[in-house]
C-alpha cells in the first residue's frame, strides 16, 4: 500500500462529521499520502448536535466539543484549511479551485459538503431583525449573544428536532419561546402522531407554546420588534426569530462538475460517485440502504460516520458495502429520545408505556409484520433491542409487545 499512496493527494471538501471522520479513517486504513481538508467555516471542526442542545446553555463554547483533538491532526498529518471556500471542481485536471484563485490537485476527491439551512421565501424576512438559522457554531453563538432579559421573546419557525431542541434550550435560559409549525403536528415528517403529541405536551409543561397549522406568511419589523404574521391572521411578536424549516443539500459543486445528482449526490455502496476518483459522504449523499432496499438521504451523525469508514476502506482497496441501520437521538429538557430504523411506510404502531419506571416509553413502527423502526423515550433498552430486532429481521409477536406486563428482553416478543 505504501508505495501506491505515499505520493498521492486526497482532498476533502467539508471538514465536519463526514469529512473529519473520513480523514482519520483514511489514515487508519493505511493511506500514506497527503490528506487535505477544506472548509468555509473558520472554526476548528466541532460536533454539530450540541449546538441546539448543551452548547446553547453551557458557558464553555464549541471548542469544548471538537470532533478530534487538535494534536491528532498533527500526529496523523491531516492538513486543515479552514475559512476556505472551494468554488469549482475540474475533473479533467483532477483539481479544485479555491475562491482565492489558488488551485489544489487531487488523486482522490471526497465531497462532504453537507447541507445548509433552507430559508423559506417569507415576505419581510430579509428586513427582519435578529433572524438566525441553526447550523453552525456562529449561528449558535449569535443566538446566545442576542438573547438577554429584555430581549427574550423568541419565535421558532419550524417544529422539527432542531427547532424543538432550540426551544427547550432557550427556555432553560429564560427566554419566552413559541414554536410555529406549518403542518398539523410537529415532527410530522419523521414520527407517528403519538410522538408529536408527547413532545408538544412536554414543551407545554415547560412553558413553551408549540402551535400547529401556523403558516408564516410575512414578518414586519416595527417599533424595534418583529411581528410574525401567519396565514390564519394570527400574529406573534419576536425579538429573536429562528428559522428551522429544514435544509438544502450542498450539491452545487458536484452538479457543476457533472456528477450524478438525485435528491443529493448519488453514490454507490462504497460511497463512490459516477467518477471513480470522487467519493461523497454524509448529509449530501443520496445512497442505497440495503436493509430498507431503497435510495435515501439521511441527516445524521450515524450516516456521516459510517459512510466515512466505508469510503476510507474503499479508497485503500478494502472495499466493504454500506449496510447500516440508521439511528439518531434528540435531547429536550430531561428527555432522551433515541430512534432506530426508518419508519416511512409504516401501517401500524405499537406504543408501550413502561409502568415500572417514570416517563419511559417507546413506539414501535410496523409495516405488516416487518418491524421498521423504534422511537424510545428514556428507554435505551427498547432502542437497543430495536436495533437488534431490525438487523435480524426478527418476526415479533405484536400481542406480547403490546403487553407492558411482559418486560423488554431479547427473547420476550419472539
Amino acid at each position, binding site marked *: 500500500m505504501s508505495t501506491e499512496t505515499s505520493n498521492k493527494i486526497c482532498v476533502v471538501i467539508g471538514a465536519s462529521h463526514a469529512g473529519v471522520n473520513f480523514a482519520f479513517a483514511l489514515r*487508519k486504513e493505511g493511506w500514506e499520502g497527503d490528506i487535505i481538508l477544506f472548509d468555509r467555516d473558520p472554526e476548528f471542526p466541532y*460536533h454539530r*448536535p*450540541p449546538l441546539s442542545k448543551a452548547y446553547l446553555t453551557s458557558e464553555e463554547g464549541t471548542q469544548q*466539543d471538537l*470532533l*478530534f*483533538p487538535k*494534536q*491528532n491532526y498533527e500526529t496523523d498529518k491531516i492538513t486543515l484549511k479552514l475559512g476556505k471556500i472551494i468554488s469549482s471542481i475540474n475533473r479533467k485536471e483532477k483539481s479544485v479551485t479555491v475562491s482565492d484563485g489558488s488551485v489544489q490537485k487531487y488523486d482522490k476527491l471526497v465531497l462532504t459538503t453537507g447541507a445548509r439551512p433552507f430559508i423559506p421565501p417569507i415576505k419581510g424576512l430579509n428586513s427582519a431583525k435578529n433572524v438566525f438559522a441553526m447550523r453552525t457554531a456562529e449561528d449558535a453563538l449569535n443566538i446566545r449573544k442576542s438573547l438577554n432579559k429584555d430581549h427574550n421573546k423568541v419565535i421558532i419557525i419550524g417544529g422539527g428536532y432542531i427547532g424543538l431542541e432550540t426551544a427547550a434550550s432557550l427556555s432553560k435560559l429564560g427566554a419566552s419561546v413559541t414554536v410555529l409549525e406549518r403542518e398539523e403536528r410537529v415532527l410530522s415528517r419523521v414520527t407517528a402522531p403519538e410522538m408529536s403529541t408527547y413532545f408538544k405536551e412536554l414543551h407545554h409543561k415547560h412553558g413553551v407554546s408549540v402551535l400547529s397549522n401556523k403558516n408564516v406568511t410575512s414578518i414586519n419589523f416595527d417599533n424595534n420588534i418583529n411581528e410574525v404574521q401567519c396565514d390564519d391572521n394570527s400574529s406573534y411578536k419576536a425579538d429573536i426569530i429562528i428559522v428551522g424549516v429544514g435544509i438544502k443539500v450542498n450539491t452545487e459543486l458536484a452538479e457543476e462538475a457533472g456528477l450524478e445528482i438525485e435528491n443529493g449526490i448519488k453514490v454507490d455502496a462504497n460511497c463512490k460517485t459516477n467518477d471513480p476518483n470522487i467519493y461523497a459522504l454524509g448529509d449530501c449523499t443520496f445512497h442505497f440502504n440495503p436493509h430498507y432496499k431503497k435510495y435515501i438521504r439521511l441527516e445524521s*451523525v*450515524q450516516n456521516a*460516520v*459510517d459512510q466515512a469508514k466505508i469510503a476510507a476502506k474503499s479508497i485503500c482497496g478494502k472495499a466493504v458495502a454500506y449496510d447500516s441501520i440508521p*439511528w439518531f*437521538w434528540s*435531547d429536550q429538557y430531561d428527555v*432522551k429520545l*433515541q430512534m432506530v430504523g426508518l419508519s416511512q411506510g409504516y401501517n401500524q404502531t405499537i406504543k408501550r408505556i413502561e409502568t415500572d419506571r417514570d416517563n419511559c416509553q417507546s413506539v414501535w413502527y410496523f409495516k405488516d409484520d416487518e418491524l421498521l423502526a423504534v422511537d424510545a423515550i*428514556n*428507554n*435505551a*433498552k427498547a*432502542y*437497543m*433491542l430495536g436495533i*437488534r430486532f431490525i438487523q435480524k429481521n426478527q418476526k415479533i409477536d405484536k400481542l406480547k409487545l403490546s403487553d407492558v406486563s411482559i418486560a423488554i*428482553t*431479547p427473547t420476550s416478543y419472539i
Partner: protein
Amino acid sequence: MAKITFVTSDNDTIITEATTGSVMELAVQNKVKGIDGDCGGVCSCATCHVHVEPAFWDKVGAPSQLESDMLEFDDNVSEYSRLCCQIDVSDAIDGVVLNVAK
C-alpha cells in the same frame, strides 16, 4: 492528573494521562483500538464499551440507568461493563485499568 491504562482485545497496553474530558475522548486521542466514540459521547452508540478491571470498579463507579440499559443486551456485557464516554477523567480515577470490550 489521572493515569488511565487501556488494554485492547489484542492485549496491547496503552498508558495515558489526562486531567479533563471523558475517558472515551482520551481513548480516541490515543487511538485505542476498539473505542470509536461514534455518537460523540452521548450514550447512544455503544462503541466505547470497556470492562473495568474488577479491582478498580469501586473507583470508577456504577453506570447510570440510561447507560446500563444501553449495555444490558450487549453480547459482551459483564458485571464490570461501562460505556467510557460516561466516565469523566479526574483524580478520582487515577490508576484505573480498563479492558476494551470486543
